[in-house]
């Protein structure tokens, strides 16, 4: 088997395994898994920028929130149907990511991190400022009756799970395709040595902007799906903490590996799920995980797997 075939089977296998798990797992866990799949989409969007292109953003919550509020507000105030509202969410995420990318990419390194952080902070404050419509930190509920697509009830466990899986599968295959394409290779080239990439004739600025936009829209799609499937939009999802989560998931799972985000999200979700049952200070686990990861496994779980056993992992 060639590496490409292996990686095709891996991606298809993961999706099939996830689909089967719905019928095997107890309801509590399949409910969790639906949530994890949506968050993993967010992490995959983040991974494209951080893991492959080498750009560390501390402001991705802005894109997630753009998708979430694009959908939420469209349904709440303009009575959009779910499909149209998802598109509204994606368009908002697209516009926001173009603007942020265009400005933030003029900086590099630490300045890029801080600029993205600042933009996200401004976004969060904007949501609070328009609290009359967004209901601020409290957030608003998207009515159960509105969350129907044709005959599919997105509030039923099955409708919710397979919608989440559909989105996940689409994004998972998109990422797998990008990573293998010349575009993906060029992004890795930027991560490895930006100046060299320029001197081979790559338009680094343009490639980075494309990466930011794809990453932003994918994160936005996760935000829109989250609001739609779980019926809630709130400013919490725009806080710094939600910018740090995808970084954490990707680092834990393995940056620059296609399955890294999924693995990282599953692990961290359950770590926090279990620890929050014990203590309200559950973010302690996240903090410890970050420090230990930086110290001992900067490649993450899937990264270590690739380094030791499976060098073909895409």
């Amino acid at each position, binding site marked *: 088997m060639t590496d490409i075939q292996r990686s095709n089977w891996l991606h298809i296998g993961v999706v099939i395994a996830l689909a089967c798990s719905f019928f095997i797992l107890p309801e509590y866990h399949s409910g969790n898994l639906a949530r994890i799949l949506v968050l993993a989409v967010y992490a995959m969007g983040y991974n494209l920028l951080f893991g492959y292109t080498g750009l560390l953003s501390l402001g991705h919550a802005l894109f997630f929130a753009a998708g979430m509020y694009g959908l939420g507000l469209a349904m709440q105030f303009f009575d959009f149907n779910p499909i149209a509202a998802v598109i509204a969410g994606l368009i908002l995420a697209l516009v926001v990511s173009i603007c942020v990318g265009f400005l933030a990419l003029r900086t590099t390194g630490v300045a890029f991190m801080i600029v993205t*952080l600042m933009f996200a902070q401004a976004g969060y404050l904007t949501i609070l400022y328009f609290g009359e419509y967004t209901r601020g930190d409290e957030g608003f509920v998207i009515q159960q009756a509105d969350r129907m697509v044709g005959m599919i009830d997105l509030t039923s466990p099955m409708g919710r799970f397979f919608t989440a899986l559909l989105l996940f599968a689409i994004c998972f295959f998109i990422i797998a395709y990008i990573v293998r394409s010349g575009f993906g290779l060029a992004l890795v080239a930027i991560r490895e040595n930006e100046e060299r990439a320029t001197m081979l004739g790559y338009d680094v600025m343009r490639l980075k902007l494309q990466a930011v936009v794809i990453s932003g829209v994918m994160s936005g799609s996760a935000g829109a799906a989250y609001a739609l499937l779980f019926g809630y939009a709130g400013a919490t999802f725009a806080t710094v903490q939600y910018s740090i989560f995808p*970084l954490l998931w990707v680092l834990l799972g393995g940056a620059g590996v296609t399955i890294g985000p999924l693995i990282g999200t599953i692990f961290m979700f359950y770590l926090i799920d279990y620890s929050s049952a014990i203590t309200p200070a559950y973010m302690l686990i996240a903090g410890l995980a970050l420090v230990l990861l930086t110290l001992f496994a900067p490649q993450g779980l899937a990264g270590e797997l690739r380094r030791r056993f499976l060098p073909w992992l895409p």
Partner: protein
Amino acid sequence: MEFGPHLILASLEGAVIAAVLAMTAMGLSIVFGIMRVVNVAHGEFFMLGAVIAWWVAHLLGGHPAVGFIAALVFAPLLVAIIAATADRLVLQRIDYDPDRTIVGTIGLLYIIQQVTLMTFGPEARPVEAPFNQRLAIPWFEFGENGFEIYWPWGLSITSYKLFIIVAAIAILTALWVLMTKTKIGLIMRATQQDSEMARAFGVPVKRVYAWVFGLGAGLAAMGAVLVVPVQQAHYLMGHDPLLLSFIVVIIGGLGSLPGTVIAAVLIGMSDGIISVFFSPTLAKILATLLVAMVLVFRPQGLMGKLRS
């Protein structure tokens, strides 16, 4: 109400904010300037300073002044030791790699914050000020009897707040003397210029870095001890100082110490003044966007010089 007296009050409140901010931001700036480290956990060292101040004051009891003075000594010291330990245990091991440092200090942020939540609890707790006289703000008018000074009802500031301003100036002056006139300062500046060269001349660079990291955190803690009698200690209080310090350090020019002070005064004063007259949220939005734009279009800061 009249505009004039309010402006005076707002300026004084702004000066208090600026004083504390200058110290906190100075800590961040020193760490960035000398070590090239972006310390995301800086706000948590500020918070720790306030929380430890509460512990010290609480344990000692007696006259508030006793607890306060003890806190002013012990809290920064303890925080500095914690920070230096974190530097040794985490940052040194990853060799200050920029990306990993950011991630590592984000981890530290949550560890410090959550451990505080587990031990200190979610309540906000006050520390009593050592002295706290109300001082009414005078204003003047040209009435029937010509020029008259009077005290508009309800407009006052406390003696303690004025003390914060004086104390911050004193501490920052002491820091300036330390950095420019002493051997310790010389070693730090040498390390900043060229750590390889400093190492070659026998400077224990690793130890210097640990000190610098401790000093930066200690400054934040000291700022927090000063502010805790007017603000109360709470485990989430590190968030705003962190963001504001970032803003100050960026506007002032990354790593430029005089720039940091000027920017702190600018930001602190305008924050105080703006939030008296405008919606604080809108002010924050504009300030954050302004800072982002400064970084995008003038990365050397408003006052910094472009490095060649």
